[in-house]
């Protein structure tokens, strides 16, 4: 809301600078978003009269005008579209600096000399309007200093009023705030209407059919008005407050609305069928055309103002086209009413129509102030439009609600704010805000709430008033206490922190993608079950229509984007939530981690230049999985002397992976996710030519043991004995198969097994390969002899021969 400071000063004495006022308001809850200065020093700007207009010889859009300055005639080149012979316009003469900084100098404009400038409002700093020249009323005397018309410079505060404070959407409301903050009296005008003998009841009637939607409706009739522009002072105030002046009758309704917050509507009395106002719900299928020229379908949820025959306004939102004030209007029916906020909000929303009026009604206007506003407007219409007001006011107010009363305990206020505030100071603040303190006892007081404060309805609300007006800066800011809450447990959240730290330690960088993405991208990767996805019925764009049920699509997109930006390698992870419909049909979510690898991430230094083979990439992501699981204390199983993590993989043939190069992963017997090399088809989508590995795991199975405390055991004091075995096996024999055979016969003393060579060669025969392992045998209680170690090793070799038909290469 725009508040001209000079207007505020009508109701309260202010001797602070605009900046000080702004700070006072900001720190009492109404944020001042800007301070604007309108107008300025207009020395040298006079009212000019355009005597002639001719086309500029060298420019289509320019004209050359002869302008009278009142003391002589000058030539001015003008670019405005609305220039015309006879108009009176502010003319900036040579040497003037306009409020927008423009200096007026004698200048040749496309070859024609110009001796001044005809001004638009924005050039004069009066508004942002640059549609055309500011045309002054024809009766303005040519040569008058423009300063006499524009008045002194005006300071305008731009306020952001919070939605709970409709009383602040007015000059008097803001003045009341300042009065309370400054401890000064508030001056509210007491309008007196010069009334004629005829009573208003003899001229009009009002009936309310929906008293819930409209608890109060007042009407006055002002006859014999003469429509004309409003006086300068009123036009200036309206303009400064951001409202365009129209004519004296309409301007008065707007002026009073800005003054006290009560929207008013002026009907042309002659156009009201039956001289009657009916406040009723719209009928099904009813149509009406509003002031803005559109035909609107109204429905039974909306409240209308009708005359005896037809609707004449959408109550509280906008007037109708058939009853509006015209140049020839002679008699005005002035409406000042209270409409139920929620009704107006619904209507405004349904019509897609928000006006200054609906904005105030939907927040709540002052039920008690409805008549005051009517009286004030009538007074001004009589004064400014030469009208004659019928005696009295029709005030339909069938059910006057009693004012709310709220009790407040003084100590409670001190405790809640943590500030030492005297009882008397509290009472004074309430009274300064226009609240009535009905009783003040030793420990508490009771406060009566006037209708304009729709936001106050409990003790805490009153305490807020105290903190606002007393000042939050006076609330102390003590050093904090650390307080331990017994039984508090955030181990689940800590586990996620630990996860992230480990992933970073493993060399991965965290990324973050939106929780929603396009269905196209999800389908491209084809992960998850499309039927179980959660769609956004109302997405912000086609790229964000589905909640993700997997991180892999965005991970690939991220790798692709970075590759396109010349990144040679990337090792990324994302940890967060995926969303899906559960088996029971309800929406579910799950914490997951996703890893994506691109380029020589497993190599260091100059070795990075070596090409990355599928085997390399797979080994890296697998190693990463194993290290991650080890860090999270994933459960181990012991077989013989060896301990292995309970991590199992099974082939995974999902289409997003290269065939045979992906596995599903389970941890401690629980299915956990997938890991593998991304298919060439998908890689091509992002022009990724090198191998790319991704892994996506559910966190719950991984985190089960994260808080486990390790129990130490002896590492043994005796040296181990190493024995190697090299063998030729069928190519289909896996490392895992070898481990299973070995651990099946391994004695307690076999404490380590390490694959150190894999070889495929013509000389081995087709479909065969050579594997070489190093085994470590060690006893906890003695040094093993060569003979003992050989015996163990022979047993292992025999099992490999038997189970895998391994051809052991002795002496290798």
């Amino acid at each position, binding site marked *: 809301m725009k508040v001209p400071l000079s207007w505020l000063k009508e109701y309260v004495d202010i001797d602070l600078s605009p900046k000080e006022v702004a700070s006072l308001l900001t720190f009492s809850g109404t944020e001042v978003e800007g301070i604007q200065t309108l107008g300025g020093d207009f020395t040298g700007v006079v009212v000019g009269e355009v005597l002639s207009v001719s086309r500029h010889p060298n420019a289509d859009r320019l004209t050359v005008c002869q302008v009278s300055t009142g003391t002589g005639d000058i030539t001015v080149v003008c670019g405005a579209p609305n220039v015309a012979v006879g108009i009176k316009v502010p003319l900036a003469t040579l040497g003037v600096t306009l409020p927008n900084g423009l200096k007026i100098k004698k200048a040749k404009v496309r070859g024609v000399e110009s001796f001044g400038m005809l001004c638009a409002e924005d050039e004069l700093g009066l508004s942002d309007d640059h549609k055309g020249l500011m045309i002054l009323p024809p009766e303005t005397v040519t040569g008058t200093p423009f300063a006499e018309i524009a008045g002194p410079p005006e300071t305008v505060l731009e306020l952001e009023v919070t939605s709970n404070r409709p009383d602040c959407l007015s000059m008097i409301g803001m003045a009341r705030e300042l009065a309370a903050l400054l401890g000064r009296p508030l001056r509210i005008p007491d309008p007196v209407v010069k009334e004629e003998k005829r009573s208003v009841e003899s001229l009009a009637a009002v009936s309310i059919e929906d008293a819930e939607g409209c608890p109060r409706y007042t009407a006055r009739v002002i006859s014999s008005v003469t429509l004309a522009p409003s006086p300068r002072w009123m036009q200036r105030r309206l303009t400064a407050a951001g409202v365009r002046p129209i004519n004296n009758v309409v301007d008065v309704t707007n002026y009073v609305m800005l003054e006290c917050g009560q929207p008013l509507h002026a009907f042309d009395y002659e156009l009201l069928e039956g001289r009657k106002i009916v406040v009723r719900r719209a009928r099904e299928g009813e149509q009406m055309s509003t002031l803005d020229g559109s035909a609107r379908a109204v429905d039974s949820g909306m409240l209308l103002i009708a005359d005896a025959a037809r609707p004449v306004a959408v109550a509280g939102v906008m007037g109708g086209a058939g009853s509006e004030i015209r140049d020839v209007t002679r008699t005005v029916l002035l409406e000042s009413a209270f409409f139920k906020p929620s009704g107006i909000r619904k209507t405004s929303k349904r019509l897609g129509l928000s006006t200054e009026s609906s904005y105030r009604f939907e927040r709540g206007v002052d039920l008690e102030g409805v008549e005051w506003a009517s009286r004030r407007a009538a007074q001004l219409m009589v004064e400014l439009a030469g009208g004659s007001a019928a005696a009295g006011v029709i005030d339909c107010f069938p059910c006057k609600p009693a004012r709310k009363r709220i009790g407040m305990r003084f100590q409670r206020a001190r405790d*809640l704010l943590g500030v030492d505030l005297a009882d008397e100071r509290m009472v004074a603040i309430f009274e300064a805000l226009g609240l009535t303190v009905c009783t003040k006892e030793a420990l508490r007081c009771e406060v009566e709430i006037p209708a304009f404060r729709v936001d106050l309805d409990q003790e805490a609300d009153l305490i807020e008033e105290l903190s*606002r007006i007393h000042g939050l800066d006076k609330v102390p800011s003590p050093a*904090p206490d650390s307080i331990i809450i017994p039984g508090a447990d955030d181990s689940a959240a800590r586990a996620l922190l630990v996860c*992230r730290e480990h992933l970073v330690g493993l060399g991965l960088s965290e990324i973050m993608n939106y929780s929603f993405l396009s269905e196209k991208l999800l389908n491209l990767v084809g992960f998850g079950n499309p039927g179980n996805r959660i769609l956004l019925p109302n997405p912000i764009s086609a790229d964000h229509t589905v909640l993700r049920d997997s991180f892999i699509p965005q991970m690939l997109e991220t790798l692709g984007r970075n590759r396109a930006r010349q990144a040679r390698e990337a090792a990324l992870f994302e940890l967060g939530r995926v969303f899906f419909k559960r088996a029971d049909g309800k929406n579910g979510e799950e914490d997951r981690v996703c890893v994506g690898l691109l380029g020589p991430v497993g190599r260091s230094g100059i070795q990075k230049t070596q090409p990355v083979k599928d085997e390399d990439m797979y080994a890296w992501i697998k190693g990463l999985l194993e290290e991650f699981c080890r860090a999270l204390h994933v459960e181990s199983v012991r077989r013989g002397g060896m301990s292995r993590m309970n991590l199992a993989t099974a082939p995974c043939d999902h289409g997003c992976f290269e065939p045979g190069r992906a596995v599903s992963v389970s941890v401690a017997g629980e299915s956990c996710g997938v890991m593998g090399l991304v298919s060439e088809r998908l890689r091509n989508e992002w022009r990724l030519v090198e191998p790319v590995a991704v892994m996506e795991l559910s966190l719950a199975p991984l985190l089960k043991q994260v808080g486990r405390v390790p129990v130490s055991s002896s590492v043994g004091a005796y040296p181990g004995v190493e024995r190697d075995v090299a063998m030729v096996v069928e190519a289909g024999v896996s490392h895992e198969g070898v481990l299973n055979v070995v651990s099946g016969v391994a004695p307690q003393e076999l404490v380590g097994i390490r694959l150190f060579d894999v070889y495929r060669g013509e000389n081995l025969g087709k479909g065969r390969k050579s594997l070489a392992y190093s085994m470590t045998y060690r006893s906890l209680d003695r040094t093993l002899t060569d003979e003992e170690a050989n015996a163990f090793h022979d047993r292992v070799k025999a099992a490999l021969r038997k189970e895998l038909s391994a051809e052991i290469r002795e002496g290798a």
Partner: protein
Amino acid sequence: MNTQDIVILKDQAVADIRAAGTPADLEAVRIKYLGRKGLLPVIMEGLKDAVPAERPEIGRRANEFKQEVGQALDAAKAALTAASSAATRGHFDTTIPGAWRGLGQLHPVTQVIEEAIRIFSMLGFTVADGPDIETEYYNFDALNTPGDHPSRDTQDTFWLDSGELLRTQTSPVQIRVMESRKPPVRIIAPGRCYRRDTTDATHSANFHQIEGLYVDRKVSMADLKGDITFFAHQMMGPNVKVRFRPHFFPFTEPSVEYDFSCHVCGGVGCRVCKQSGWIEISGAGMVNPKVFSKVGYDPEACTGYAFGMGVERIAMIKFGIEDIRLLYENDIRFLSQFA
């Protein structure tokens, strides 16, 4: 041969060793003095001709000679070998690029969240959590949001076909926590939130908040001010100032907004703070008694404060990030700056 001869011989040997420039020279010196037909064996040979009384002394000296010359030869040989090896192995470049698998880094949003958790942990806050897909009850009703409040509009909130919604704030976690335990409560709840904002440099439809809630018998606005100020100093530096302005939120009463003084210019005014010297952080306030009633707390028996802060906003000011979209673009050149 007497003891004097041996001393002279030793001096000669040392001189010869010094003069030797190659391993071959040294070998010649060794043979000359210590070889089977060298000068020392000659001395030993002459021992039997010596006066019996002098024999032990000469023997001792001869042994000494053997040891000392032997050691000198070894030392000279080692020195020669070292020199030659440096020459044959060539220059060692200590400026080659290091080659150790690097560390990754956390996303700046996570870094701010972890830092906030660390700071509030010092005060005894623990982390609480809630779902991203929320019910209207937790996201709005229980937080005293009026039924026709604009924030409930499809314009602002992502509603789902199920009638649920994507939470627009982390505040529903407050309700879930209070429903599940009795006071005292001290929690912070970081998490993702969603609003139908058109994405621009400062708005993102998907963003993060950190909710804080403290409920006890006598919590005051002063406690809120003190704790937020402590947070500001820890997060942004000890010179940062905090100011509080009254505001309006349905779930707190009184409500405030708070600003940090600009840590870039120190409050003088600069580009980051749009010349105001202050940066708006977020909202807070004393828990509305109506919210306590909804969760079954006795509003007479407890008071509390709550705050919510935008994580991206803090990350942007803390790290000088100019456009919120950078945080979701995942350019590794950008992310690697936050190691």
